[in-house]
């Protein structure tokens, strides 16, 4: 028997080893010659040199199982042939088949693994993390251009409602026409834009949203002026009528 030069750790476990023996000897898995298989299995264990007890125990457990099956097979067959008891090999065969199915499919996994390794995925852009950072909401954003007069109107309305016991739901509040865009909000928009643009530079026209109305454009422009005033951004123009670039302010970066 040429099992001697095969090391035990070449196998994933006793099932793997058994399966190897079955394949090698071209055994019909549904009719295993248990005596000879057990013999081969034990011979293999004997020959295996690398007996570290940890890994061995599972192989020894299987040896015991095989011997048990073998002894059951030796018992005299029941008198009535038709009432044949379960084949003592049945459970082992099922386990081997189950194991084979898994072992077979690992080849496909291996192929797919190699194929999928040909593809590269990019790390998330650093700007994404920055965008996700949510600065604390500033008071200005919260109040969004609400004036003292709005507050006054709100108060009047509440009091009126209280007196007339008006249904709260029906007295929908319409007095404050909310400004959809605030300078503060637009400043943040521009800051975010600079985060996203490579080298933190962006062309002037990009700060305006595509479908921005006149009011929004004005507010956006005011926000840009405010950022310039606060020395957060600076603008550059390389030549007359050239593109105006907006970038983060840097000391002595430009005129």
């Amino acid at each position, binding site marked *: 028997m040429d099992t001697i030069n095969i090391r035990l750790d070449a196998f994933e476990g006793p099932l793997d080893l058994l399966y190897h023996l079955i394949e090698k000897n071209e055994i019909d898995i549904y009719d295993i010659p248990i005596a000879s298989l057990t013999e081969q299995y034990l011979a293999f264990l004997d020959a295996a040199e690398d007996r570290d007890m940890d890994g061995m125990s599972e192989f020894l457990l299987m040896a015991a199982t095989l011997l048990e099956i073998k002894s059951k097979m030796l018992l005299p067959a029941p008198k009535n042939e038709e009432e044949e008891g379960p084949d003592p090999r049945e459970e082992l065969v099922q386990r081997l088949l189950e194991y084979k199915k898994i072992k077979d499919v690992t080849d496909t996994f291996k192929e797919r693994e190699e194929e999928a390794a040909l593809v*590269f995925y*990019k*790390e998330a*852009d650093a700007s*994404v993390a920055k*965008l*996700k950072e*949510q600065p604390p*909401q500033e*008071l*200005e*954003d*919260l*109040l*969004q251009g*609400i*004036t*003292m*007069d*709005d*507050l*006054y*109107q*709100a*108060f*009047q*309305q*509440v*009091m*009126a*409602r*209280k*007196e*007339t016991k*008006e249904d*709260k739901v029906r*007295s929908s*509040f*319409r*007095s*404050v*026409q*909310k400004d959809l865009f605030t300078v503060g*909000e637009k400043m943040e*928009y521009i800051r*975010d*834009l600079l985060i*996203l*643009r*490579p*080298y933190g530079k*962006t*062309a002037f026209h*990009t700060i305006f*949203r*595509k479908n921005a109305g006149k009011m929004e454009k004005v507010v956006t422009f005011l926000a840009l002026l405010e950022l310039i005033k606060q020395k957060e951004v600076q603008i550059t123009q390389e030549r007359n009528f050239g593109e105006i670039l907006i970038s983060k302010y840097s000391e002595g970066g430009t005129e």
Partner: protein
Amino acid sequence: MRLSELEAVVESLLFIAGDAVPLTSIAQTIELDKATAKAVVLALADKYEKEKRGLRIVEIGGAYQMCTAAECFEYIRNMYKSPQRQGLTQSLLETLAIVAYKQPITRAQIEEIRGVSSDHAVAKLVEKRLICEVGRGDTPGRPILFGTSNEFLRYFGFKSIGELPPLEEEQEEENGDELTV
């Protein structure tokens, strides 16, 4: 390799880099001279612009970087910004108005005027430091009295609370629904 294949390779290189890639690296990788490599990069960049794609290639100091098109910025921002920045809700505005005009005032009194529970609104306004605790009432349980904060004054630009617009007691209340600005 044909031009389209070269473009594909350059595209993948710029994509995976996530940063600017020097022209020399590109040229080396596709085993061509720098001038040809540059032509490939520019052809790809040109295609992006012409086809109005979501990506662009920009050059900075002899290196090339793939980035998103400026037209898409708004959507990218929408995806990553949680839409929590809303203005003052009506309930906050009402509560703030009541505190401003009736201060010092307890939570129970606010609720009585509004006719609805105002715990949340009060807590939110305190959190935003627009109103604050200004003392304790004399009634049983010594309830907290709320008033507007200095923050509030600063925002609305009043020197002191005395400068709030006066309440006109004789307000026609019949058409209370039409108090539009």
